[in-house]
């Protein structure tokens, strides 16, 4: 019982920390600090995946997002050097309307979430192994899997063609 309460408290604190990190992503004036905050938010989401018994997805999240995408982002930040200048304003003048409309959006959505009776079945707690996921990817979902691989190749070639020096 105490273990369960401890688990609850730790999950909620992870959620709060990743929200704080996400706020850092959009509010830090330095884009480099924002990228480091994004790492925090992504790791927080990965921990939430582990708490929801989706271990494989958590590992994919860490490897792909924190490993690959973040490296890419930091490279892009370093290759475009004018950003080091702190005097340039980093936000445009739309922050107040955006804040108001998003507050309305979250308020509406949150009240709907709390009011709706979700058809909650008995929670699946058995972990989904990589074996089961691989069988599903190459069995039932083989068509979207192939489409995604074509998109990946197209994205790869497109990125190389766009970014190379002529």
């Amino acid at each position, binding site marked *: 019982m105490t273990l369960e309460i401890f688990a609850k408290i730790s*999950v909620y604190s992870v959620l709060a920390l990743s*929200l704080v990190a996400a706020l850092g992503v959009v509010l830090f004036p330095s884009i480099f600090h*924002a990228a480091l905050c*994004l790492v925090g938010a992504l790791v927080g989401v990965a921990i939430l995946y582990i708490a929801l018994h989706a271990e494989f997805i958590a590992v994919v999240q860490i490897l792909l997002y924190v490993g690959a995408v973040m490296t890419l982002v930091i490279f892009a930040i370093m290759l475009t050097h004018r950003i080091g200048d702190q005097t340039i304003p980093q936000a445009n003048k739309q922050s107040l309307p955006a*804040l108001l409309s998003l507050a309305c959006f979250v308020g509406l959505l949150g009240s709907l*979430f709390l009011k709706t009776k979700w058809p909650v079945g008995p929670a*699946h707690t058995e972990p989904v192994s990589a074996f089961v996921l691989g069988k*599903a990817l190459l069995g039932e979902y083989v068509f979207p899997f192939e489409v995604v691989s074509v998109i990946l190749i197209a994205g790869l070639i497109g990125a190389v063609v766009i970014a190379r020096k002529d």
Partner: protein
Amino acid sequence: MIVPLEHILIFGALLFAIGIYGTLVRRNIVGILISIELILNAVNVNLIAFSRTAILDPVMGQVFVIFVITLAATAATVGLAIVLALYRIRRTIYADEINLLKW
């Protein structure tokens, strides 16, 4: 479930709203791209939460999350390539200074 479904959904909505805020407000294109990553993460959180509570097979939600992560990585790659090309030509990475198509 350790945490009730509603709380995870509210967390996802907050993450989504923060990402939208960054997309609307940031001037730096790299900042906009990483805000889009936040939005896609919020979607993934919802998919995983529903895969755990709905009657459906949890494998389905996880497969969708894998597809979303793959497409997000592709989007980030192409987006950052465009940013680099744009910086090489126009010497700026601020979204409101790129007004080639405005007249």
